[in-house]
């Protein structure tokens, strides 16, 4: 296994990336409530931007729900629009 890896020419590194799964699908969360700050803040990194799907691994359906929820939460000052 290790020798096979070493034989590989430079520049063709192989990554063993874990397959990302949608947190909401796994945990069977159907609705994303805008009041659930604890949940939403997991998808809002430091800069207060909404985390893209390619990083969080959330499926498109849940990303859409998440988007709506985060935007509602921002409106009522539960989440920041940006950090100062």
């Amino acid at each position, binding site marked *: 296994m290790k020798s096979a890896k070493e034989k590989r020419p430079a520049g063709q590194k192989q990554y063993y990336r874990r397959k990302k799964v949608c947190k909401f699908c796994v945990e069977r969360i*159907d*609705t994303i409530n805008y*009041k659930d700050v604890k949940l939403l803040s997991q998808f809002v990194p430091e800069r207060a931007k909404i985390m893209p799907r390619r990083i969080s691994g959330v499926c498109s359906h849940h990303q859409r729900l998440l988007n709506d929820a985060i935007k509602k939460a*921002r*409106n*009522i*000052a539960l*989440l*920041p*629009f940006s950090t100062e």
Partner: protein
Amino acid sequence: MRNYEIMFIVNPNAPEEDIDKINGQIENIITSGGGKVEKIEKMGKRRLAYEVDGQREGYYVLFVTGANGDIIKECERRLRVMDAVIKYITVRTDEEVRRMEKIKSYRQKRAARRGSHTSTASGGQFTEEATQ
């Protein structure tokens, strides 16, 4: 009749009676207009994510109501006028609730079907064993 959630933030320096007074007024608007108030939740003081009207803190209040558009319009107008209320939001929830129920019923149906399948399968196994 539709279901709405009205959430608003009251100035944290306002006395407790003022908050109760505001709640009473909003409740009055809803009930007198033919709507119903399902829940009034005082979520208490918490830090705001950003500054609103020079405030870093706010007292959150949540109304869960069943009402129609006119009542909500009136509520929003009143909230806008009140000095102690620094922010409000109204969210319609009935569509969400309906969708949730649909998913739930679908899941139950599936679980029931799967349950009956397994029971028959196991039953079949038992008979097989018996014949052996």
